[in-house]
């Protein structure tokens, strides 16, 4: 429709041009004021050339030129908008990731602290258990020693008794010597009994 209008316009211009009385154009170049009078040999070719270029360029060239330039303008505007949106998203993502990192660091610190506390408690528990066990072992050792001592003491008492019986038997067999041998044996017995008791 647009080019129909342009074609109508071109036709109107051409009709107007040919409608102008030919007498208005100089027959021959004579100089002077004649230079300001249009010559048909210049007017008509110029009119036709211009109208042809107008119609052809108006149909083929200018719409494509304009659409390309507008497409470029639109793409640049879209790219700038997209870049702005991407920038805003990057800022938001950065803020989110910063928050995540901060939270992760806080959680890690909490975990480390908790682990330290757990380790400390475990250490204390182990030490306490070790202490208890050591005390038990010591107590058991004491009891064992006491038992051993008692056992040895009992053994010693038995041995003393046996020794006494043996000494008494020897005294009986060798007709007791009041001042000499008997007395020496009893003293030896007491000496041995005393040393055993001392252990």
């Amino acid at each position: 429709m647009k080019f129909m209008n342009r074609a109508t316009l071109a036709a109107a211009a051409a009709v107007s041009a040919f409608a102008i009385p030919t007498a208005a154009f100089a027959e021959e170049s004579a100089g002077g004021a004649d230079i300001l009078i249009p010559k048909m040999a210049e007017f008509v070719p110029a009119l036709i050339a211009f109208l042809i270029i107008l119609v052809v360029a108006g149909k083929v060239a200018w719409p494509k030129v304009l659409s390309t330039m507008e497409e470029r303008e639109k793409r640049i505007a879209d790219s700038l908008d997209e870049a702005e949106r991407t920038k805003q998203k990057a800022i938001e993502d950065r803020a989110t990731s910063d928050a995540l990192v901060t939270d992760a660091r806080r959680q890690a610190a909490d975990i480390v602290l908790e682990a330290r506390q757990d380790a400390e408690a475990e250490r204390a528990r182990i030490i306490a258990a070790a202490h208890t066990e050591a005390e038990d072992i010591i107590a058991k050792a004491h009891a064992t020693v006491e038992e051993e001592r008692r056992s040895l003491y009992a053994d010693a008492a038995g041995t003393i008794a046996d020794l006494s019986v043996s000494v008494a038997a020897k005294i009986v067999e060798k007709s007791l010597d009041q001042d000499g041998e008997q007395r020496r044996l009893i003293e030896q017995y007491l000496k041995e009994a005393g040393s055993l008791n001392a252990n």
Partner: protein
Amino acid sequence: MEAFELLPDEINHLVSEFYSTAVAGDLNVGLTQYSFWLLVAAVVLCVLLFAFVKKQTLVPHGLFVNGVEYVVEFVQNDVAKGVVGTSWRRHFPFLATVFFFILVNNFIGLIPGMKPGTGAIGCTAALALCSFVYFIYFGIKKHGVVGYITSLAPGGMILPMRVFVWVIEVFSLLLRPITLAIRLFCNMFAGHIVMGSFAIMASLFAEPLLNQVNALNAAGALPSLAWIAILIIIYLVEFIVAFVQAYVFTVLTAVYIQIAESESH
């Protein structure tokens, strides 16, 4: 100085060379040197446009694509969007075609040995007529025939005053294509005349030295250096003029379109 005595005749000869001359047919049916170079410029414009369209990608590469895109964006933002307003998209193809058509013609004319298509009133008149028909068409399309005609005069005035202003506005409207055509033609024509004049002066002052080398002729040829320097400066300025005139023609067309489509003039 002899050079100054020869100058008027040489300038007249130069100006006469800028008059339209038929290179095929006659001045009514045929081609002049200007229309020939205009057709060359049209072909160049088509080649440039299609090369640009073919090479243009989402990510522009190279000086050519970036350079053309820069100019297209200039027309889009500073002329179409900046002047026409919300309906810029509908008018961009026309404005861009006008701008590039004039620009390429102007630049073609700056190549030594070539002529600018816009250096002939017939060519600029054709462009101005297209511009005129274009904005009248869209004015009528927006307001209707009667609505557009009556909208030429502002409201809120007593009837006789409104009629008076309407007549003035109609004259103003009819003068628009004429001023568009003459402004562009005169700027391009005058620029080339000025450059040609300085080139003639440089050659006139240097001519005795080229014929016979001696101290006197060498001293007399010294001003040629100044004329050549001025010629180079004007040549560089003409590149700016070529761009500015394409811009002025296009932006005025955009203004006329905006006025034609506005609710009240």
